[in-house]
């Protein structure tokens, strides 16, 4: 993300009023969860909000305003029974006006087209967020009806909460173990689909600590409306402590835990199935192999969703075996 985008501020009073109205809408509910990119908690969402304001102002001033003023005027001035204004029933061709009605929209679309090109590239979810370096790696797997977040470098995984350190970019890879889903954390970044047998990417960053709404937006069955999570941004030291806490208090991701995870059910139902792994309504898992994510991609792609034994912890708590290099994992590592 360029600094220009991060520091962008509405330069006009009108824009400020508009954005504060939007801010009111976006609200931070009593629960203290940020719901919307109109109240952004990171640079991507902030840039998206600024982009929205630009487009709304441009279209409002040059498209809506003239029509909202002109049309009522026309209907009133040329109402049936009006005596004074001219009546020209055959006036149907006037080249200068024709040129204007085409030129106006073309000019507006040219400006918008430029904006689209610029922002689409600047805010491409596949684009790593500057400063480059080692972003926090997170792998998200969509199940019915919950997300599993794997931290491959830390060897842990969570359900129901996505903890991230502030100011460190997050590089997320997504797939689905079931139907198509779409992961959205509005206050941090836009959404991207998660699809079985495929890997998509999303980059995001939080600039201040706080709790943001995270959700699946693609309908996937009866528990769809329960498929929410909290994106929990915290200072880096707190994040390290959090990782230690998960390691200390989570349970190992073994075949039994994985089976419970991959069954259709909400986070609450998973908590009921894995009470020892649950903390404040979320699930903490440890000894998670970095090979789990590519293995799930491959298993979904080949139609053998249960063939994951080799990347799960053995029941006795033995470390997971080394995984062979799969087609999916090499694809996943491709640039």
């Amino acid at each position, binding site marked *: 993300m360029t600094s220009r985008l991060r520091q962008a501020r509405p330069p006009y009073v009108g824009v400020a009023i508009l954005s504060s109205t939007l801010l009111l809408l976006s609200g931070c509910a009593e629960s203290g969860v940020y719901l919307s990119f109109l109240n952004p908690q990171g640079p991507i969402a902030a840039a998206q909000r600024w982009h*929205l304001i630009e487009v709304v102002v441009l279209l409002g001033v040059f498209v809506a305003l003239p029509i*909202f003023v002109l049309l009522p005027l026309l209907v009133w001035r040329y109402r049936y029974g009006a005596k004074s204004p001219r009546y020209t029933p*055959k006036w149907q061709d006037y080249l200068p006006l024709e040129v204007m009605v085409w030129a106006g*929209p073309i000019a507006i679309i040219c400006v918008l087209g430029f904006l689209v090109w610029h922002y689409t590239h600047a805010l491409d*979810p596949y684009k790593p967020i500057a400063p480059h370096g080692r972003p926090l790696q997170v792998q998200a797997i969509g199940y019915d009806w919950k997300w599993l977040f794997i931290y491959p470098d830390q060897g842990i995984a969570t359900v129901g909460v996505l903890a991230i350190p502030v100011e460190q970019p997050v590089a997320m890879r997504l797939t689905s173990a079931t139907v198509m889903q779409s992961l959205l954390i509005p206050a941090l970044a836009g959404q991207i689909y998660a699809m079985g047998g495929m890997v998509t990417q999303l980059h995001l960053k939080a600039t201040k600590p706080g709790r943001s709404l995270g959700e699946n*937006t693609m*309908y996937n069955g009866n528990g769809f409306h329960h498929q929410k999570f909290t994106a929990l941004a915290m200072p880096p030291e707190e994040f390290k402590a959090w990782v230690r806490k998960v390691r200390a208090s989570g349970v190992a991701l073994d075949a039994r835990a994985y089976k419970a995870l991959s069954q259709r059910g909400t986070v609450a139902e998973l908590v009921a199935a894995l009470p020892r792994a649950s903390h404040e309504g979320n699930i903490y898992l440890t000894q998670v192999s970095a090979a789990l994510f590519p293995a799930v991609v491959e298993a979904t792609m080949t139609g053998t969703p249960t063939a994951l034994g080799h990347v799960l912890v053995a029941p006795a708590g033995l470390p997971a075996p080394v995984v062979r290099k799969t087609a999916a994992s090499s694809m996943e590592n491709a640039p």
Partner: protein
Amino acid sequence: MNAAAIIEQPLGRLGMDSLPFWEMLQHPTEENLINGFIGGGAACVVVIGIVVVCALITFFGKWRALWSEWLTSPDHKKIGIMYVVVALVMLARAVIEAILMRLQQAVGLGGGFLAPDHFAQLFSTHGTIMIFFMAMPFLIGVINYVMPLQIGARDVSFPVLNSISLGLTAAAAMLVMVSLVIGQFSTGGWFGYPPYTETAFTPDVGPDYWIWALTLSSVGTTLTGINFAVTIYKERAPGMTLMRMPLFTWTALCTSILMIFAMPPLTVATAQLALDRYLGFHYFTNALGGNMMNFMNLFWLFGHPEVYILILPSFGIYSEVVATFSGKALFGYRSLVLATMTIAVLSFTVWVHHFFTMGQSANINAVFGIASMLIGIPTGVKIYEWMATMYRGRVRLTVPMVYAIGFILLFVLGGITGIILANPAIDYQVHNTVFLVAHFHNVAIPGVLFGLLAGYHFWFPKVFGFRLDERWGMISALCWLFGFMLAFFPLYALGLMGLPRRTVAYFNPAYQPLEIVAFLGALLIGCALLALLIQGWVSIKHRNENRVFAGDPWDGRSLEWAVSAPPPEYNFPVLPVVNDADAFAAAKEFGVAYQQPDEFVDIKLPRNSAMGPVLGGLGFVMAFGLVWHIWWLVIVCALGTLAAIIVRGFARDTVQTVPASVVKEEHGRWLDAVQHAAAISRAAECDPANEGLAEQGAAGATS
């Protein structure tokens, strides 16, 4: 699918548990009871409705008339009316579903009263019905009725095919209705994305109902598109060059071209999904080489042009309405034709904007984002041209004009939110939220539905010979307008607050106030529908005071106003010769309207054919058999269809003749009525004084 299975399970998957109330009786929990009563109640309404209609027909002894004068009629006018009847019935169902969904969401903080599965069926049927069984039949019905009259033709090119298209569409609509009574409908939304709709995740009959309803309807619509396009190319009256066609006919042509090219991808997509579900193929599965994105590409390759299939005819209606009720020629005819064609062509270049979030490169997204915005250019042109038409005119605020003005104002907002969504960087945020729901309703309700309702008011006197009640029409129009705003503007805000679409319940109280406002809007829309019904009742009651037999109640401009209301079966006693873009307006101006032709000749019309109802009926039963795996029924219906087509091939007596003497007598009667009618100025156009003859000259149009 072997012989043993057919014998062992003659009813396929059909069992007691397919009936409404079953789940409720087996497991009488509170939730099951509520949902059982709502679902079962709806099923009862369908069954009782059918029984009552059948009883009434029997009581009045109208079965024969229904069969010989309506169902088997190849007359484009009757087929058009039947299409609109289907559309209005389905509109009623889908609006009731919408109110139910809004009620659920209004009380949906933490739960609500509907089961998630029930809610999912509601949004799936609501969308499927509104697109395929409300908007499509409505616009096809209006085009069917009006277009041949506007181009000075006796009928469409393939009248029996027209009847077959209606049969297939009605069969598909019936299939959706039957899903209320037997089994359940899909929960996968109106676009039924796999792999969710694959057997692995949804093994029940729901997606099968959806697949076959869409297949029947898309085949019917493709045939309609061919029929309309050929009619417009080949059946125009002498002198009606392409650039003299009324704008509504132009939009009908563009819509037909879109139908021909856009419906096949849908047919292919649903056929592939059917192969996946029935024969274990892997087109769109997660595994074994399937790719669900192929379905999405095919679906939206249909789905986006579909948006313009729906909206172009309404643009055509607005063009006629604005010109007529401004007492002025349409401004910028050539620009409007060019803009319509531009929209038709561009509509095939934007489908990826339905899934910017698939993970493709920024270059692809930017190109499709800009392409989507390009459509804003011709659309903007149209709005300015309509405004220029009002300039220096005399605008009469009749019901169609109120719809048109409301449309322009609201559609501008819908267009703006469309351009917002066409920015991939913003779409990442609001895609799949209720912001998107608000956007497409904002273009579909003012854009499509208001246009069709304006057309309904505009052409109703032509079709039935009497005007609709203006007061109830205005009440209905205002309820639609304000109901729409109340119901959908809150959804923009809710979408910006991150509320996903298709959410049966939510757990954050911040959403509830706006959900309640949206529910009130839905109620107001319900009132609009009720007012429309009352209007029909009142108008029929007072029909004799509001007759417009002379045929021209609005001082119309195109040829459909140049005949009696209702028009004779053969439309024109002698085919008109056209010298001007606004053919009838020019004829009235030069005093050559209402002429007695020098001589009359026998008129040849297509004879009735049972092909429409027979193929529609067989299609319905076959689809039902496919849904429930009743294979013997499928085979019987397939053979029956084949036999029907072969038998039709032997039909030789397919033409009937209206003798010249009858034509002359009917025409004389009409001319007589015209001569005795009082020409009225526009001030009296909504009074009983309006007998369908317009006073000419500036005095008639302005004072």
